[in-house]
């Protein structure tokens, strides 16, 4: 554990030196500040921010993680030649990345809201930051696993983009096309299950439950109403997102343990 913490601390400094992440935090800071200042009321700003987070966070996390694992490869190899456990090495690297990416979101989005005392939508803002952090963990973990499996940098980068495009765009496109093709069939339940099977959609539904509840109540079918009924729904979604976050990280750890450097 102490070794992992030391590695994490070192990696934190290393990542920070790239300044990449400052840009990331400043991007959210600017977007939030501008939306709160000029985008009408805070709820509206939050709606727009949600779209931005759902689109950019998975992309940034998966791309950054993929690139970073490759960049840190020599360092990792050097350290593994020393008496350093692989689990500690992986945990340290992953934690440093996750913390920094999450910090960009927490500070970038959190600060403008915090300075305004929550702007009347503090709870929903916290939820959005939470969703952003969860997506960061999911996609950073995926990026790490991907980079460990694929030694070719360019290839790994391409696959990362592909995975992101599938999760962020193609998945919903397929759902929409399928739903249209099967119009009239009892689609409520399958569509809901399919939605919860994609972490980006899951995070989106959590935000919808708080931002568009009037519209969601227009749903027929008790399963929806029950799911969308505030607290229970949010709790279920939070647990699912946590499971989603753990999955890729554990896979990455497994790959890292077995990898022949």
């Amino acid at each position, binding site marked *: 554990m102490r070794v992992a913490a030391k590695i994490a601390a070192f990696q934190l400094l290393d990542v920070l030196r790239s300044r990449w992440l400052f840009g990331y935090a400043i991007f959210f800071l600017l977007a939030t500040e501008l939306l709160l200042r000029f985008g*009408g009321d805070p709820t509206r700003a939050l709606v727009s921010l949600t779209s931005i987070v759902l689109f950019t966070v998975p992309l940034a996390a998966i791309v950054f993680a993929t690139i970073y694992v490759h960049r840190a490869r020599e360092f990792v190899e050097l350290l593994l030649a020393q008496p350093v456990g692989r689990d500690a090495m992986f945990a340290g690297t992953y934690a440093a990345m996750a913390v920094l990416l999450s910090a960009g979101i927490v500070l970038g989005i959190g600060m403008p809201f915090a300075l305004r005392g929550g702007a009347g939508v503090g709870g929903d803002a916290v939820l959005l930051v939470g969703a952003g952090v969860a997506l960061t963990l999911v996609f950073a973990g995926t990026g790490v696993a991907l980079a460990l499996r694929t030694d070719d940098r360019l290839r790994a980068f391409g696959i990362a983009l592909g995975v992101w495009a599938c999760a962020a765009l*193609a998945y*919903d496109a397929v759902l929409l096309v399928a739903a249209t093709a099967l119009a009239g069939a009892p689609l409520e339940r399958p*569509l809901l299950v399919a939605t919860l099977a994609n972490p980006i959609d899951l995070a989106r539904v959590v935000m*919808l439950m708080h931002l568009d509840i*009037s519209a*969601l109540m227009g749903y027929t079918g008790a399963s929806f109403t029950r799911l969308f009924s505030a607290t229970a729904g949010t709790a279920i979604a939070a647990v699912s997102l946590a499971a989603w976050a753990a999955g890729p990280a554990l896979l990455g750890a497994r790959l890292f343990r077995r990898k022949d450097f």
Partner: protein
Amino acid sequence: MRALPVVTRAVLFAMCAGAPQPALGQASHTLVVAPGTALATLGEAVARASAGDRIVVRAGTYREPLVTIDKPLIIEGVGDAILDGESAHAILTVAADDVTIRHLHFRDVGVSYTSDLAAVRVLAVRNCRIEDNRIERAFFGIYLAKSVGCRVIHNDIRGAARDETSSGNGIHLWAARDALIADNHVSGQRDGIYFEFVTHTIVRGNTSEHNLRYGLHFMYSDDCQYLGNTFRYNHAGVAVMYTHRVLMAGNRFVSNWGDAAYGLLLKEIDDSRVEDNEFAHNTVGLSADGANRLVASHNTFRSNGWAVRLLSSTDDARFERNNFFDNTFDVGMRGGETTTRFAGNYWDDYRGYDLDRNGVGDAPFHPVRLFSLIVAQNPPTLVLLRSSFVMLLDGVERAVPSLTPSSVVDDTPALTPIR
């Protein structure tokens, strides 16, 4: 006052209250009903009273069969005068003109599946006044049938309805005209306020909430006005049907949620005006189904699922100078084109510009989004709301409109909220 004879007092009271005066020379008395006295039931007092008398009901609980008021009387409670229906029967029937009932406390009217038992039932009379009463756990609260010129003011009706079949309406008017329904509070009934074949009636300043079905429900009730009422948390909102020349102004339609809940559902409502109302937090704010020649102006639609749902059965409606804030969908419709016109509204989604600085956007606004059409066709797809792909789709459609109806357009969108 104390020195005045009883007769003069009664006459003075009648004049002050604006009730019809008894004819000159006809003696008017006050009868006092109180528990444990010679006159211990309202029924007996009514039987003994003559037209124009006043009956004072002192505090106490009165359990007696249905009382029919068959002559013009003023019946007035003092203190907490409770008329108990013992969960078995109706309480008062008004069967004479010029009856006033005030300050009484009705409770526990029996439920019946064959007759409309009510706390106060008014049958074929003129000029009744029902004021300042409390009605608790009544099957029907106040029931006016075939009556003219009645005033129902400042009553508090709290039902305990559990399901639609075993519950009645709070204020129920059937075949009435020239009534005034003002400042009442109705909750926990089937429909808060229900009109059928009612004309020239004013409904003002009432609050109708937490009812099992509709806060307000009317049919075949031409030329009525609904002003400054609040309808909120009703299971299905407000639905009004088959009526001409309705004016609804200054009302609030708030928090009516559900797959068949509407802030306001207009079905076959012709030549009507909906002005200055607030629609907030409803699944559907205003649904126009056959609302021909409707004029909706200066309303504010805030945080609704669908601010306006327009059905193709609506012809020549006009939406002018309304505010649209934070609605998931501004206008929903089921494809097709429409003869309804939008002009001069404020849309918070509008991203246009105003080069000539006249306060009117230079580019038109199309309030129907492609995704709202998809959802109308296939409701389960709503779960994809705000997904990146859907936003992309909407963006493309907005840039190159091809599927959304071109006739639903506001050519003169306001750049700042109205008023």
